[in-house]
């Protein structure tokens, strides 16, 4: 039997939106992915309590919910830092040198894709092509796009952004 999620967690107003999504699908099991999207949008990531609650509401075994969450790259089980740097790793961005941006991040900030700094301020993420290939190489700092820059230019801009953010 799954342990019931803590009450505190469920009192969060954000559950209303998530419940609405499940209700729209009549709590059918095929609502799982849509529900996970809603939950991640609301909380930023999917923790164990959230997954247990969704499993219970959709009458789906928690193992299946976990299996789905781990299958899809988009779903995150760890919280993100306050600021995020997203590096596009699509083909055009690769050809134009984003692999070197990632190497630079590791060398200078000890961050690999998926990592968050210990003080929880900055997360480095990679994404499989944002579809802005004509602007390659593309890096996204807190939602704003840095595009068409040389390695030296991008890294200078990232450094400046990190100094502002940190």
């Amino acid at each position, binding site marked *: 039997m799954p342990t019931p999620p803590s009450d505190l967690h469920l009192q969060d107003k954000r559950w209303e939106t998530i419940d609405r999504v499940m209700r729209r699908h009549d709590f059918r099991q*095929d609502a799982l992915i849509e529900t996970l999207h809603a939950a991640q949008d609301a909380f930023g990531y999917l923790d164990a309590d959230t997954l247990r609650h969704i499993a219970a509401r959709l009458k789906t075994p928690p193992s299946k919910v976990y299996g789905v969450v781990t299958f899809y790259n988009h779903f995150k089980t760890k919280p993100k830092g306050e600021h995020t740097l997203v590096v596009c790793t699509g083909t055009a961005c690769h050809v134009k040198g984003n692999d070197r941006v990632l190497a630079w991040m590791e060398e200078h900030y000890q961050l690999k894709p998926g990592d968050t700094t210990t003080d929880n301020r900055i997360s480095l993420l990679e*994404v*499989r092509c944002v579809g802005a290939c004509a602007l*390659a190489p593309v890096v996204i700092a807190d939602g704003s796009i840095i595009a068409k820059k040389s390695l030296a230019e991008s890294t200078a801009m990232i450094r400046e952004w990190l100094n502002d953010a940190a």
Partner: protein
Amino acid sequence: MTQREALQQQAEQRQQVLDAFSHHLLVCAGLGCLHNDEIIKALRKEIAAQGLEQQILVRKAGCMGLCALGPLVLVLPDAVYYQTVTPQDAGEIVAALGKEPVQRLLLPADLPFFSKQQKKVLALSGRIDPENIDDYLAAGGYASAVNAITAMSPPEILRIVGESGLRGRGGAGYPTGLKWATVAQAAGERKYLICNADEGDPGAFMDRSVLESTPHAVLEGMLIAAYAVGAHTGFIYVRAEYPLAVKRLQLAIREAERNRLLGQGVCGTSFDFTVQLRLGAGAFVCGEETALIESIEGRRGTPRPKPPYPAENGLWGSPTLINNVETYANIPLIIARGAAWFAAQGTEQSKGTKVFALTGRIKHAGLVEVPMGMTLREIVFEIGGGIPDGHAFKAVQTGGPSGGCIPAEHLDAPISYESLSALGSIMGSGGMIVMDDTSNMVDIVKYFMEFCMEESCGKCVPCRVGTAQIHSLLQKFCDRQASADDLAALETLCDLVKTTSLCGLGQSAPNPVLSTLKYFRQEYLDRMADPSGPHQEGQL
């Protein structure tokens, strides 16, 4: 007044509104033109300051294609394009209306990027406001669907689509008419329709651009398809990485419903069709049709063995039509202009036009639409403007992780499904990445193999284990540790993975390796531990 007349009136009213302005400034509001919202604001402010609100209309528009020189602004009726526009340019642009255009921002009128293209699917892209259904109606939108549903029979539509010769634009090139006929004939009370907007190829953005620029054209194509095959529920499976496309689709569905072009009793007939969005969650394999169906059903996206094909046994076991975004976007044109019009373009077996995302080491990167049969050379050197910074062309990669690299000696090959596969690549969905003499082919191939390895769903052994083994062999080449045996092992493994994997991901994962072994073998040999080894001679 019938629904048909009401829509016509709505279209005419919008056209009157548009015609009342002497100039239109269309600003690309796609993902590729950064800060377009600020440009729109600055132009409106300038126009208001000059009291010209009744003469000049600033409109949000879809993608104009030349993303490399964006943000773009199109001036109508002059048909003048301005490039790399900033909000600070607003004053000059407005002041120049009706006079000499601003030379500093002007794109040459005869640029081959525009003059050599033939925009059909993209004809309205960059010309209408994607967030306004009236704009699409005024441009003749939904006329094909209304005509099909109120005045044509499903068999008639199936015949036209079959005769057009349209083949699926999602990659495999299966004849669309044949697929539709199979679904139409399949036994089953309930049938489903799916639009595949997963666009997983990392380096392709045709579908994103079509969805962002003309979402209603995709809905219209789906509506016609649904009527032809007898489906009443449709799904658009769209990547979560495309938030703007998702937003515009949501809006388009709402507006179509409000105008009774979707929902119960479409166009006042007894035909019902609803469309729902489903967000992907970052798994490349979910672009494969059976994996996509698993995903819509709320599960892990692992492919099912085929047959049975989705056309007979798809979503929740029912006959399901699944087509790509661009495939659907072609349908309203074919219904409006006829099968012969469509079939008049292209090659013997590949009809019509194809949209490509032209990127990489190329001057005019962007979105282009060309007739099938155009040569790669024309696309790369004329439309694309060639390679920047004095570098030399090396290869063009088509088909992404499932495709191959085509070298300079085949630049005169015409693009078609057949010729690209004869060259060891595939048409794919339309990604076209140009590489120059600075690109390292083994590195690119390793990049694609890493992609396939990470995206393998793990269901079958050849793909799960094979892609990892191929990847570690490629790593050896990159580290200059490979031996002649490694080269032989690489070829054997590629053959094995290609022939024994369950789905298209594994079956085509070796393509980038095989095509570079064929055309750029020297680059592998140069990266062996002992490059003077016995394998070198005779294999070049």
